[in-house]
Structures are given as C-alpha cells and as structure tokens.
C-alpha cells in the first residue's frame, strides 16, 4: 500500500508539472496570439498608408503630366481652331449658293440672271479653293478632335481610381498608353520603343502606368542633367524566360552614383535639389512592382546612363 501511495504521489507530482508547463505555454501562446493580432492590424494600417502614398504620388504625377498634356492638347486645338476659322469664312459663299438654288427652285431666278449671279459668286468667292479645301478641313478637324479625345481619355484612365483593382490586362497596351500620355514631354528625345506582344498579366493598370511614368520621368531628368546633345531613352517590353515578362527603361543620362544605388528605392530619398522631387517616385514604383510579385533591378554607370529592369511573373 505504501509503495502504491509513493507511486501515486510521484504520478500527481508529474501531473502537476504537466499542468504548470501547459499553463505557462498557454500564457505564452495567448501573448503570441495577441502580438500577432497587433501585427496584423499594423500590417493592414501600413497597407492602407501605402495605398494613400501611391495615390498621392499619382496625383503628383498628374501635376507633372499636366504641363505636357496641355502642350499636347494645344497642337490639335490650334489646327482645329484654324480649320474652324476657314470653315467660318467658307460659310458665306456656300450660303449664297444655297440661296441661289432656292431662288431657282422657286422660279424667281432664270436664264441670264441666274448665270450672272453664279458667275459673280464664282469669281468673288474662290469656289475652286473652297472645293479643294473643304474635305481636308473637315477631315483634319475631326482628326484633331479625336486626338484631343484620346489625350483626355488617357489622362482620365490614369487618374481613375477604378484602375486600382486587379484584373487581366495587356502590358503592351499599358506601355503604349503611358508613352502616349508622355508624348509631349518626350518630344526632342531620341525615343526607342520596342514593345513585343506578351501574354496578359493579372495587374493594376493604373498602378503600372504610374510605375512606368515614374521611370520615364526619371530617365528624362537624368538625360536633361547630362546636357548631352544626343538624348536617348529606350523602352523595351519582351517575354523573358518562360515564367516572366521583362520591361526595361534605359537612358544615356548622368547615371547614378554607386553610393546612392542601395538607397534608391527608399521612401523620401531623392538626389534632386530641394523643392524638386518628392523622393517617393522610385519607392512607389518599387512598392507597385512588389505588389505585382515582380522584381525591379537597376544597372547604372555614372556619365553613361541607367537601365531599370522590371520582371513580372506570368503566373500571379
């Protein structure tokens, strides 16, 4: 009986040990769970802040784009306005001819009277010139309006928030739309564009346009700073290996200091003078690429130029 009691005592001691260890473990697990909850909340908050930053950066980019877009709108507007002015001048002879036709139809004008009136209109109103000009004027005016419509649509597509949702889209179209948006700003630069057909990817169109604009605006800045006579920017889009798509933006600008490279994608880091640049462009670009499970890499040599390469995975 004594041996049994000793055995039971040992068993109860072992059971208490298990209880104590379990209690300790549960306490730690609860603390871990609570810390995890806090981290999840902070992560959600960070994601929210990141979305706000990206949106702010997009608004800043819209500001940058506005000067170029205004210039882009001015060209078609100028010839639409010029053509309308000519058309306005041509209205009078056309109305006179129509009035003559009306008088003829009402038998109020016949024979010599009619002939004299027509000759008078013909001699005074340059009817040949009007006949030649009219189709081109209307055609060019319509073309100008279409161009304005495209520019405004591109700008609206860029700023529209519904582009912030993920969906299947063509990277080729995204790159082409973005280049059209920057068309005015990239005039005077030797722009090489080699955009191949690549499979559609699951992406946020607006965000990707934002990323590409940031790279192109930086390339333009780097080229301007180099004061080279030959200003070259190259945009390439092509299939990479079987699993990704490569997009690269290169320039022959000033290049990037090797010391600066490791901090290039840090938020609020900029090499631009005070008052220029938010320091968020490349940070936002990096965040956008990460959000698309892609990778961004930079190769640069001071005085020679830089190349930013983004690889997007095909299966996301």
């Amino acid at each position, binding site marked *: 009986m004594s041996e049994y009691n000793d*055995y*039971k005592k040992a*068993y109860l001691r072992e059971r208490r040990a*298990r*209880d104590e*260890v*379990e*209690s300790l*473990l*549960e306490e730690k*697990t*609860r603390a871990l*769970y609570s810390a995890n909850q806090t981290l999840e909340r902070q992560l959600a908050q960070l994601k929210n802040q990141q979305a706000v930053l990206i949106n702010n950066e997009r608004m800043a980019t819209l500001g940058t784009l506005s000067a170029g877009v205004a210039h882009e709108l001015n060209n078609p507007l100028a010839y639409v306005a010029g053509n309308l002015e000519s058309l306005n001048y041509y209205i009078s002879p056309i109305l006179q001819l129509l009035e003559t036709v009306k008088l003829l139809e009402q038998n109020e004008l016949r024979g010599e009277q009619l002939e004299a009136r027509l000759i008078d209109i013909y001699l005074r109103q340059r009817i040949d010139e009007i006949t030649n000009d009219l189709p081109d004027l209307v055609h060019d005016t319509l073309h100008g309006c279409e161009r304005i419509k495209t520019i405004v649509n591109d700008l609206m597509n860029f700023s529209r928030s519904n582009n912030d949702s993920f969906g299947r889209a063509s990277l080729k179209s995204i790159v082409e739309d973005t280049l059209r948006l920057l068309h005015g700003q990239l005039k005077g630069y030797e722009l090489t564009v080699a955009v191949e057909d690549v499979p559609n990817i699951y992406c946020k169109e607006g965000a990707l346009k934002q990323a590409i604009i940031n790279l192109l605006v930086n390339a333009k800045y780097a080229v301007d700073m180099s004061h080279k006579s030959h200003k070259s920017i190259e945009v390439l889009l092509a299939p990479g290996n079987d699993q990704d798509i490569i997009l690269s933006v290169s320039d022959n600008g000033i290049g990037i200091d090797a010391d600066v490279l490791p901090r290039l994608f840090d938020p609020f880091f900029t090499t631009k003078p005070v008052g220029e640049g938010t320091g968020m462009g490349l940070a936002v670009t990096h965040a956008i690429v990460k959000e698309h499970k892609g990778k961004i890499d930079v190769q640069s040599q001071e005085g020679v130029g830089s190349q930013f390469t983004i690889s997007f995975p095909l299966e996301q």
Partner: protein
Amino acid sequence: MRGVIFRGLEELVVEAIGMQAWDELLEAHAPEGRVYVSPTSYPDAELFALAQGVADKLNKPLTDVLAIFGQSLFGFLAEKHKGISSKFASFEELVLSIDSVIHMEVKKLYDEPNLPSIAAIVKDDKTIVLEYCSNRKLCFCAEGLLYGAAQFYSRKLKIEHPQCMHSGAKHCVLILHLD
C-alpha cells in the same frame, strides 16, 4: 483531438477508478510510452478507444460514459481556464457564447480545425434550443458538458435530444430545459 480532452479523461479515470485503471487503459489503447499534454493533438480513435475501455471496465454503455466524461470535463476545463469561465455570469450566457467566445479562445491557443459548430437560440427564459454539428458526433459528450456547466452555475437542467446525428440527421438538436 486536443490533448486537453485526453487530460480531462485521465483526470476523471484516475479520480474515479484509480491510477492503475488508467495505466491499464493506456497499455491497452494507446501507443507505448504515451503521455498526454494539452497543446498536442492525438488521433480521435485513441480517445474513442480509451472511452470504450472505460465503458468496458465499468460495464456501462459508451454513451453513458461519454455523458459522465462531458460533465466531469467541464469542471476540469473551467478550473484550468478560470480566465475564460469567469467571463460568464450565468449558464445561459455561457451557452450562447460557445461558438463566439469559447471556441474563439480555443482557436487562440490551439490550431484546432475540427471544433463543433454550435448554434443556440433562446426560446423562452427556461428553454434554449441548441444545434450541434461535428464530424466527431460527440453529442453525448456535449450533453455531459452542458450538465457540467449547469452544475457549475448551480442550475437544474434537463436535456431533450429529439434529433441526433447518430440517427442520420445532419445535426443534433438539444433542447435545454432549465429550472
């Protein structure tokens, strides 16, 4: 099944029929050298075999043993997790919080994918209708737990079990009649 449930059974067996009986049950129905600890999961079959072993030893139907076990398990769990049991001022409050509070606390501690789903509706101030659904079909144990909870709050409880998963129903219906 989580080790904490095995530990509850161990406690009951050792208290009721002795340490030797528990050892014999382990010898007969558990892998060699098995020691149950709360955070670890063990095969469900092991618990059922041990419970059946208890039923055989006591010469009682398994359902009766599960009911007794459930009743004892509530006291064991309430003692072990005083922080949780003290959150409920009444039996009714506890029953209505099984899914939203108690099972949530279990999930915080253990990665337990097979928790039963329990929906409780108050019919009147003396009747609660409870729907129990679990792939383990431990409704008799659930009944026992409810009796244990009633005892904990010094309430008299009678349970009707008009619909049962063991008879092919998708879920069990337990009607709780309080004094």
